[in-house]
């Protein structure tokens, strides 16, 4: 089956000529291996015995009562994946692909550090060298993940340009790839970048949606009324949405970073941006009138990105998914409520999806069960969230 290069008008391959050959090679490899029994069985064994799939579907009854979600609030527990987030689904698949393509070196960008940790983990597992680009700001706010990556044997390369966040790390990773393209596979961490990356990442993450659709039917005998996920580049969201795109009665909601609110800095590319080209694809983008890419802002490093994956832009335009946003403040309070009422410390990224459930509860009520992609756990965020919430370890 051929790989999607465009989603409506969005996507494409707006990259330097130097890497076009590598994108062709990746496209061919993916077309060849995506249905290859050996590839699928190797990946399948790792997903079940190493990652811990299928991840459970859990009913969050205390939050459900507190927030008034009458038809049930369900979490797809990607936080229980090995390494603590959905990112490993993609990283493992791509590392297996890289090995089949004969690449010796893996590079990645990371914002929250979850994709970096997942890639470092997968590279360690198969014995490939790994370098992760990470903005200086993110290295500070997600320092636990920096230590994890280094323990796993990856080299973490600080990026000082721009605001020292995910956009800058991605640009630097692409420059490395342009320079070392013969030996190196670039594992992009979200459903962004030039084709075929958005399709490969979505495909590898679609296991979230496939599993949770079957689990919802098993547990409740019905489909969810609404599926909600946070959107940085959009990989956990597209992963869960892909399970439900054809179910016209299931409402899909993506929650972007509202940051300081619409008057301040934020990461709400779909709500407040307009189409443009960043990091190889045409998609909604925060930019000024001249096309200079704006600096995003979010309390969560993983949503602090001015772009979004091209499939989301298409789903936004055709109205299949509604994209909303949640502010830093709303996410932080949802983070605490989920921790205290469910005993689950969610990632700050994920907390944006939870904040939307709480704040839109009135309109969700009566609309059927609500399914949230609990994309990751919040261990990485305890420093930063603790500081913001006034919780520390002093006696």
């Amino acid at each position, binding site marked *: 089956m051929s790989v999607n290069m465009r989603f409506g008008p969005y996507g494409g391959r707006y*990259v*330097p*000529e130097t890497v076009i050959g590598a994108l062709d090679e990746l496209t061919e490899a993916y077309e060849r291996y995506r249905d290859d029994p050996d590839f699928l069985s190797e990946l399948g064994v790792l997903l079940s015995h190493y990652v811990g799939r299928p991840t459970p579907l859990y009913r969050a009854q205390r939050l459900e009562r507190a927030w008034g979600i009458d038809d049930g609030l369900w979490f797809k527990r990607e936080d229980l994946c090995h390494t603590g987030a959905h990112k490993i689904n993609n990283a493992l698949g791509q590392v297996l692909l890289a090995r089949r393509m004969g690449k010796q070196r893996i590079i990645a960008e990371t914002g929250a550090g979850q994709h970096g940790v997942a890639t470092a983990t997968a590279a360690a597992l198969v014995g490939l060298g790994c370098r992760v680009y990470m903005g200086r700001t993110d290295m500070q706010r997600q320092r636990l993940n920096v230590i994890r990556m280094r323990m796993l044997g990856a080299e973490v390369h600080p990026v000082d340009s721009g605001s020292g966040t995910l956009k800058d790390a991605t640009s630097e990773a692409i*420059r490395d790839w*342009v320079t070392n393209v013969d030996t190196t596979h670039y594992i992009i961490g979200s459903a962004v970048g030039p084709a075929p990356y958005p399709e490969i990442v979505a495909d590898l993450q679609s296991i979230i949606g496939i599993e949770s659709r079957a689990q919802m039917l098993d547990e409740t005998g019905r489909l969810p009324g609404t599926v909600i996920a946070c959107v940085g580049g959009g990989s956990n969201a597209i992963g869960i949405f892909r399970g439900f795109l054809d179910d016209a009665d299931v409402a899909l909601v993506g929650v972007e970073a509202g940051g300081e609110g619409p008057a301040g800095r934020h990461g709400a590319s779909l709500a407040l941006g307009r189409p443009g*080209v960043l*990091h190889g694809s045409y998609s909604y983008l925060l930019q000024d*009138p001249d*096309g200079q*890419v704006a600096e995003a802002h979010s309390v969560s490093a993983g949503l602090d990105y001015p772009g979004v994956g091209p499939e989301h832009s298409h789903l936004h335009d055709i109205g299949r998914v509604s994209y909303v946003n949640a502010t830093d403040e709303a996410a932080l309070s949802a983070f605490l409520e989920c921790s205290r009422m469910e005993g689950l410390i969610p990632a700050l990224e994920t907390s944006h999806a939870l904040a939307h459930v709480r704040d839109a509860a009135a309109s969700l009520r009566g609309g059927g069960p609500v399914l949230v992609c609990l994309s990751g756990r919040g261990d990485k965020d305890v420093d930063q969230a603790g500081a913001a919430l006034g919780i520390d370890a002093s006696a």
Partner: protein
Amino acid sequence: MPESGAARLQRVFREADHPLFVPYVMGGYPDIDASRRHAQILAEHADIIELGIPFSDPLADGPTIQAAGQAALDGGTRPMDVLDIAGDLRDGPPVVVMTYFNTVIAQGAAAFLGTAAEKGVAGIIIPDLPVDEADEVREAAGRAGVALIALAAPTTDDARMAEIGASAEGFVYLVAVTGVTGGEMTMDDRLRALVDRARRHIPVPVVVGFGVRTPDQAVQIGELADGVVIASEIIRRIGDAPDAEAADAAVNDFGAGVAEALKPYSG
């Protein structure tokens, strides 16, 4: 009907008795007036001027051009300021602007290219617009009379070189190294074979750039190709100069040196 950008570029290649010298100036670096002056100084020595419009996320550029572009943006440089510099150069050698695709489409490609044409711009280089994505822009550029200059790289295979050659206008910019700007090329068999391969598949002139730093390297490139681009090295010299006057002198000395080295041997 004024002569099209492609025709003007063609004429420069046809009439030259030496490999063309194509220096790069980053518009707005270190400030707008200085970059205009540097372009005017280089116009005395150059056959074509490559004029950069700074972009926030230049994927094909190494640290030197990145930092210069960021400084230009921090100083408030806007695309129109750089196109105005092109307008000031219209009586000199042809100007080719270099910028990233998002700059071109921000207000619509047709509008951008129309303005560029009004300012006398002969060609445009868009390093993140590979040939397979370029049809619409090439058409808009054609209507405006601006040549869309394609890039080829060491990783471009023969079939793709031919595809690039088939739609090429003005010249093709051949990237000498697998990598971003600001490194250093070495003249070796691999590079010789690359230029040779490009010339076999590409019917328009081939200009080589990325990593060319010295007049000697320019001459080595000139023995094989139709022209040579020097970019990061010029920016480095501007950055190293203690003041504006010294920067102007450094630009002039370097430009004169490269131009002299590329002149045909007449003794």
